[in-house]
């Protein structure tokens, strides 16, 4: 399981960076989304995966005696997912607006900020 996740995370990061380096705006967004997913999976992996031991304390006990799955990484991932959902929604709308105004999808042609105004 860990090995599989490691490979997937590596692929996600590699694909994300590759997509960011393309010249198209849409691919840029896709790259950022892939990178975000890779980071989320990385938190999940580094939180140590424990199968079948939910961190629920029985009504008769005071603390968990057995090993248990750490619930914190999932909370972190949930937070990160919600945040990146908002950011990505914003980025997509921004790209759409920019395409309407600048009339190009190519990052190389976006030079208005370098002009000497």
């Amino acid at each position, binding site marked *: 399981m860990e090995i599989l996740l490691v490979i997937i995370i590596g692929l996600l990061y590699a694909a994300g960076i590759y997509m960011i380096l393309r010249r198209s705006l849409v691919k840029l967004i896709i790259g950022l989304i892939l990178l975000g997913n890779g980071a989320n999976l990385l*938190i999940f992996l580094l939180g140590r995966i424990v199968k079948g031991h939910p961190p629920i304390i029985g009504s008769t006990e005071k603390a968990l005696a057995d090993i248990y799955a750490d619930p914190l990484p999932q909370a972190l991932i949930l937070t*990160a997912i919600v945040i990146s959902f908002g950011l990505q929604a914003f980025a997509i709308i921004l790209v759409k607006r920019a395409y309407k105004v600048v009339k190009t999808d190519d*990052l190389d042609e976006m030079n208005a*900020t370098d002009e000497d*105004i």
Partner: protein
Amino acid sequence: MSNPYIVLPIIFQLFLAIVLMFCWTQKNLQKLVSTVGSLIAVIIAVIMFVEVWEVGPMVTQAGNWEAPYGITFVADTFSVLMVLLTTLSGLGVSVFSVGAVRNARVKFGYFPILHFLIMGLCGAFLAGDIFNLYVWFEIIIISSFVLITIGGEKAQLEGSIKYVTMNLLASVVFLTAIAVLYGLTGSLNMADLSNKVAEIENRGLVNLTAILFLVGFGIKSAVFPLYFWLPASYHTPPPAISAIFGGLLTKVGVYALLRVFTLIFIPDAFLITLISIMAALTIFSGAIGALIQNNIRKIFSYLIICHIGFMLAGLGMYTEIAILGAVFYLTHDIIVKTNLFMVSGLMFKIKGTYSLRLLGGFYKDYPKLSLLMAIPLFSLVGIPPLSGFWAKFYLIQGGLEVNNLVLVGFIILGSFLTLFIIARLWSEAFWKTGELVPKKLKVKYFHELKPLKRTAIVASILFLALISLGIGLGAEYVIQVAERVASELMDPQAYKEAVLGKL
């Protein structure tokens, strides 16, 4: 010392933003609420500063869960100093916005977002939990995304694409760093991490994590070689927005660097060399970039980068005196950079251009205003007794202490280049007889504004100019504050005890 009210600066800004959202359509009411609210926020910050100065670091555990498990907020001297500076420049920008931000932008919620941004900044300064710091960073960048695109002009959208991309990338790197750190230690509380990271035997892994943090915060604070998004975007939004960006957003990155690299990762020789090299090249590239620019806002953007290098140099020397210098420089830089972008906004309002070639004749036409604008410009250079001088004095002293003469050389070079740039700007924009710039229809000129708006613009610049004068002339007191901040940073025992309890 536990005090449940230290989150008040954050909650108050949220409260202000909510009130402003309720009066979404009343523009004048929004301006009033924002100004009065910012004033109250300054008062809250001052009270907090005095309190922390007297009793030492204060802590609250949100949700009442105990320290390494719950979300901690810590107010030590560094945090409250930053909160105070944030609210001060927030007040300046809020007053400036009354005069300088167009109604079309107010209609799209400029003021609520501004206060969300300041809330995020206060939160980042008070956070005592590394993941919480990430969340505050996200709040900061999402509000800044809205602010930088609001209005939707062509250059603005292009600039914001570069800005958005690099900041999202920085967030991903930061999140990756947190993941690795959590995997290494199983903790997120910064005081707890400080203890646990010190115990890890595999230092290579620790250094790797530290470099991930360095890259993440480095993109946000625009250090070499990660700065190129800044000059491509900071000159595109309206001046009020550039002011809050230039004054505070990069400084959050510097704050995070100073915090993380004094509390969690104590840099070893390798990291210190790396940071020193980055600092030297940041100073150099920022100054060289500013030399060749013609647009005054671009000049200021490059100067931001150059001066970020000074603060990073303080971290790179890593002695108490150098950190003192860095903190002093941070104090001075937040106020001055905010003010400079407001000055550039005023120049644009008067002449209708940012181009140094076309500007001119300010001193002849507006002698009093020119004198006012001279204060932030020459504070930046650090001509004694203005505020920049003392900070550099301590930075150089720190550099000599550790015998890092190269870095000292770069700091002196950076200062000279800044002097040259500002002198050129002064002679071009203020002394040269200006060319007649054709009137632009879209621009609302200074003399066409209502008297209230004109007063607001000048008053905000005057307010921040007085503060930077105060920092320069009352340097004795600021040094005391910076000294205490530096000693707390270099010896975080009090911080840890406040968070985790006496061990």
